[in-house]
């Protein structure tokens, strides 16, 4: 087990190195000169050249990369070109809203998605199944920003039940924090409910046709226990896998949701950074997002052992 974790961590480092090189090259080759943007409308070419010099944008690519890699490894994600603040500070300032949104969304979509998936599989082909399949398809086919608008319209403008936008840090109180996040969470969760419900349904259908489910029925186990204990635990591995893999999709959804609901999270930070060509920020966020993805999937792999005794590392 420890050896496995160690081996996985080593390969994680290799993956992260790939990501690093990829991200660095990608953004340095992009057009759009941050110096020109900083300089503004009235800038003369000399001013732009001066700014480039200051930002180290004139150095050859390998030199820029070496500087960058060195500082990343020493825990320094660099300084934002635009705001002049450390990238790490900018990101950590934005981390709480994004993580709050991601965790709430995951809790909501796992609870609802798994329940729906189980219900659909239980009565496969029945009314519940068909309704849920239709809902799941809808969840996949309506863009997040449209869903967001409708939720804002009905729950915030029409009824005034919930706030339109913004974020309250959790240390201002759990209530305000939750209230602010209800609509964004619902918006973002729709797709994941659909995704997890579909995976749960498929996985459950497979499990429900297994011989041991018949054995359980022959013992007199209740339907509830059949579904939620005997079947769910067996169906757990693929469901868990989807949850792990969908983390990357979740971040994609977060970018749009944060824009719609004006949540000052990492997603907004990176969209702004891309528009501004604020390289250090983009790189910092991408590195961080990939790192989290890799770690979450490592955690998921380890969690398999808790669910399925046949899996040992």
């Amino acid at each position, binding site marked *: 087990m420890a050896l496995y974790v160690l081996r996985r961590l080593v390969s994680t480092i290799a993956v992260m190195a790939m990501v690093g090189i990829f991200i660095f090259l990608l953004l340095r080759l992009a057009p759009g000169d941050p110096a020109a943007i900083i300089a503004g409308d009235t800038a003369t070419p000399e001013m732009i050249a001066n700014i480039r010099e200051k930002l180290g944008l004139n150095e050859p690519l390998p030199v820029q990369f070496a500087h960058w890699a060195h500082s990343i490894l020493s825990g320094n994600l660099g300084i934002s070109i635009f705001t002049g603040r450390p990238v790490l500070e900018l990101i950590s300032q934005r981390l709480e809203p994004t993580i709050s949104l991601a965790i709430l969304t995951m809790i909501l979509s796992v609870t609802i998605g798994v329940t729906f998936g189980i219900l659909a599989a239980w009565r*496969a082909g029945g009314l519940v199944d068909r309704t849920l399949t239709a809902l799941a398809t809808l969840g996949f086919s309506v863009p997040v920003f449209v869903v967001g608008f409708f939720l804002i319209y009905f729950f915030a403008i029409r009824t005034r039940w919930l706030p339109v936008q913004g974020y309250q840090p959790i240390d201002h109180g759990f209530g305000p924090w939750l209230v602010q996040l209800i609509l964004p969470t619902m918006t973002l969760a729709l797709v994941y409910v659909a995704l997890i419900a579909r995976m749960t349904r498929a996985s459950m259908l497979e499990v429900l046709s297994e011989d041991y489910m018949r054995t359980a029925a022959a013992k007199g186990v209740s339907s509830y226990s059949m579904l939620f204990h005997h079947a769910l635990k*067996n169906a757990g591995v693929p469901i868990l896998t989807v949850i792990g893999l969908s983390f990357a999709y979740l971040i994609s959804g977060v970018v749009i949701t944060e824009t719609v609901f004006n949540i000052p999270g990492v997603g907004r930070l990176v969209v702004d950074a891309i528009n501004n060509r604020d390289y250090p920020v983009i790189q910092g966020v991408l590195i961080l997002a990939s790192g989290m993805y890799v770690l979450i999937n490592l955690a998921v792999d380890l969690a398999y052992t808790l669910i399925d005794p046949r899996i040992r590392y």
Partner: protein
Amino acid sequence: MQMQKLAGNDVLLDVRDLETHFYGEESVTRALGGISFQVRSGETLGVVGESGCGKSVTALSILRLLPKLTARTVGGEIRFHGRDLLKLSPREMRQIRGNRIAMIFQEPMTSLNPVYTVGHQIAEAVQIHTKASRSDAMAKAREMLRLVRIADPERRVNNYPHEMSGGMRQRAMIAMALACSPELLIADEPTTALDVTIQAQILRLIVDLKEHTGTAVMFITHDLGVVAETCQRVIVMYAGRIAEQASVTDLFARPAHPYTQGLMRSVPDRRHGRQRRLPEIPGIVPSLREPIVGCSFAPRCPFAIGICREKTPTLRDIGPGHAAACFRAEEVMGG
């Protein structure tokens, strides 16, 4: 249906005109075409026949474990202690399953839940049907494992199914089925998937436990040899109907249905320890999707005459406790 009742034995299970259909996308399969039989307290009833003849469907119909969306019991009654199981609510049915009627299955490798320990699965059955505490149930599980002669039950109780051999798993299945001392145990080909030597041990175990507990057993198999060793009475099934019904001695002495005779000819010689799959009867089993005119065995029957292809024979008494569904039963028995 005239069935001669043996005096002194209570009828535990009385199945009457049981009809079960399977629904495919374009067809209906008449898996059971109206069968009737009885199981008496403490007896061992063998049910034999080729694959697909409806043995397992009968068992699943009794416990109402058929797949909900594709199969339905469309007619008949299943009286258990006089109450029709088909009319029970799901909740009442659950109180019967595993408690008063238990079942063990053909595939020990896949019939245990891989993510729970064996002890947990046995204890679960106990906890569902008695008010036993968790620890009492686990104690019962250990006791049951000892009863089915699993070595080191203290350790094995915490094993997962994948940590056990096939024979051991089937023992665990039996332990689970018998944990609540059921009145009827339905054993659906419990030894088919096992090695020959293990098979004999498991058979021995079932017979011993039956004697020990007094449970009635409905023993489903395709192996007449097994029937001969374990059962008192036998039902021979063919194409969703009962072909012949008799005591074991009568059946082997005077088989009255051509199909039974065919089966007997293909029984492997157990003294040589050889094992062969049934049957070696020429021809194929008819499709149950098509309507069958006449006797369903007629196309394969060496005794078939004109009437056999026009009318469907019904089960009729041809001796004390002996019935067969054949127009020429007497000739078959005599010949």
